[in-house]
């Protein structure tokens, strides 16, 4: 079980109620940015809730929610648009922040003809090259050296773009984590490693994942700074990410950030955590909810407007409803599209197979609409 950690090695700006802690420096986040983050975080919360209900109704095959972990998504907000991001499957906020739309998101979940990845991947495996957001991959860890390659490529190309990769603490056990971190250290690649420590990798708690005192301490082995931050404290996340970005852009190399948070619910829509953990454990963390804390902080700053939140929430809900309504009329990708994009051009074997398939009677797929 992840205990709330001693404060000295954990960067916090806000207390659990969302008030700045005495003596801390509060990062200067522009007001409109702060409000946009709040709105986007609320959107993620609403989306998760709606999609899980849909999944429970049997209308959606699979979903992955991030309730309680949303503040960590917004590390992305400290980047600029030309920076590249490799999200894992649990940072929906990163997508919406950069302008991925509710329609795109929903169409991806349904794998229909308007899905940006053409119905090729499971739900929550988005891709948006126009936003410099790289395709999500299920095999965890693989994205880490890829992000390092992107970061170093920017350096080689003489640009000051940085790359950021999100991953869970369980993923830090993969060989690819090590390999990616090590290359980044040697290359002084402008890369930010955002390890979202939510206490669990499916059913495996952190103490079965590593004997290291903290995940951030792993950075030492790669000669890079490792920073722990309260992952439910948006201001602290913004702050440490901004520092890491500044270092990266200045040619000072990579940073690993461990964002301490907690997976309040199951791993995915297929999981039932009551089998393996004490149902009391999440309760501690519900009190530290990042959305509440940010709302309280906005209130504290006089930036909060309840009516505006309500309006925004209604608008989001309506957009989701509309997208879901539209989904019923969006067909599955056409069958022959299965053969596209394997290569730039179709080789003879795929041409032959496409021809064969098109001559077969159509299969009514159980998950076509």
């Amino acid at each position, binding site marked *: 079980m992840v205990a709330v950690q001693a404060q000295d090695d954990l960067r916090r700006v806000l207390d659990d109620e969302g008030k700045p802690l005495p003596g801390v420096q509060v990062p200067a986040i522009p007001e409109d940015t702060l409000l946009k983050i709040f709105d986007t975080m609320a959107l993620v919360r609403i989306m998760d809730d709606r999609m899980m209900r849909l999944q429970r109704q049997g209308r959606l095959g699979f979903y992955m929610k991030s309730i309680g972990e949303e503040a960590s998504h917004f590390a992305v907000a400290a980047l600029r648009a030309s920076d590249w991001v490799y999200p894992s499957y649990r940072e929906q906020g990163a997508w919406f922040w950069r302008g991925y739309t509710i329609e795109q998101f929903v169409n991806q979940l349904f794998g229909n003809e308007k899905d940006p990845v053409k119905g090729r*991947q499971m739900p929550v495996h988005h891709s948006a090259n126009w936003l410099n957001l790289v395709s999500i991959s299920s095999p965890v*860890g693989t994205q880490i050296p890829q992000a390092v390659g992107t970061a170093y490529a920017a350096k080689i190309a003489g640009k000051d773009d940085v790359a950021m990769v999100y991953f869970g603490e*369980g993923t830090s056990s993969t060989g690819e984590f090590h390999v990616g971190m090590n290359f980044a250290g040697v290359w002084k690649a402008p890369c930010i490693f955002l390890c979202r420590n939510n206490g669990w990798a499916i059913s495996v708690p952190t103490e*079965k994942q590593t004997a290291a005192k903290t995940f951030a301490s792993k950075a030492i082995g790669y000669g890079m700074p490792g920073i722990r931050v309260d992952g439910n404290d948006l201001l602290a996340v913004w702050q440490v990410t901004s520092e890491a970005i500044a270092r990266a852009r200045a040619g000072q190399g990579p940073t690993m950030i461990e964002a301490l948070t907690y997976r309040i619910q199951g791993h995915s829509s297929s999981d039932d955590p009551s089998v393996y953990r004490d149902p009391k454990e999440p309760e501690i963390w519900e009190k530290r909810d990042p959305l509440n804390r940010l709302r309280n902080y906005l209130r504290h700053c006089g930036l909060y407007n309840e009516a505006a939140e309500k309006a925004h929430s209604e608008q989001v809900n309506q957009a989701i409803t509309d997208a879901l309504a539209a989904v019923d009329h969006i067909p599955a990708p056409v069958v022959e599209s299965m053969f596209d994009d394997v290569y730039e051009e179709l080789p003879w074997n795929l041409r032959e197979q496409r021809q064969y398939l098109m001559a077969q009677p159509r299969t009514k797929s159980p998950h*076509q609409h």
Partner: protein
Amino acid sequence: MPTMNIIEAVRDALRTQMRADSRVVVLGEDVGKFGGVFRATSGLVEEFGAERVIDTPLAEAGIIGTAIGMALYGLRPVPEIQFGDFIFPAVDQIVNELAKFRYRSGGQYPCPVVIRTPVGGGIRGGHYHSQSPEVLFIHTPGIKVVAPSNPYDAKGLLLACMRQNDPVLFMEPKRIYRASKGEVPEGEYTVEIGKAAVVREGTQCTVLAWSGMTSIAEEAGKKAEAAGISVEVIDLRTLMPFDIDTILDSVKKTGRCVVVHEAPKTAGFGGELVASIQERALEYLEAPILRVAGFDTPFPYTLEHEYLPNADRVLGAIRQTLEW
């Protein structure tokens, strides 16, 4: 005799052997309290304790690497790879280490590790929860490859694997984990490794299948019968070493053959079967041996049922061999 599905049969095999042989240990991601994401190991940690049912950190290379070291020391590890698609980080440990240990040590170090992993599509898993990676391992000398299609064989073969001294990749058909049910004896019995099963007798065309495709082949066999065509269906069960005698006996009798597999067609195991048969029985062939297989694309999500071989396609291929 109790009725079990494949998951239950696998669990029963593990439990039976763990009771019989204290050297058997199970390890993998989520295999402990959670009992595995498909629940194949559920209840085992309660019975055998956390030193014999080990939740590992998230690293397939570590799961197989440590299993190798355990086997060398004298244990009988049965690691689980959560999905066949996630076996690739462990490929170096399997191909370069596990499979070659006995050989490269001049016979000094046998390495009896039985790797269990669910394979195949049809569960809406997209590229990364659907692959059938058998051919790489069949091509790797030193490891056996076993792929049951039903609960009886699953238990009997898994027990056989855990009682012999070579490494094995034991592929479980996840799409029918629960759907495939049948009578399974309690306690100990084995199904011989390397022996195929003729699951449907017939005279005009032989269909070779394994794992999740066996039931598709059987369905095609039934449809063929309705159309007046007599089809023999063989469930290979073991892919390495595959049962060449049973295959040849059948093809020599029928003169025609169709191979069905889920993995992409090109350089899939079907190619080997075709090549082996025509090397030994060309003169018996009335028609080319055809393959009904996954297409040469990554496994798709929405269109997976267009991707997967189905009974109509198999029947189509059977007809084609008859009309050739």
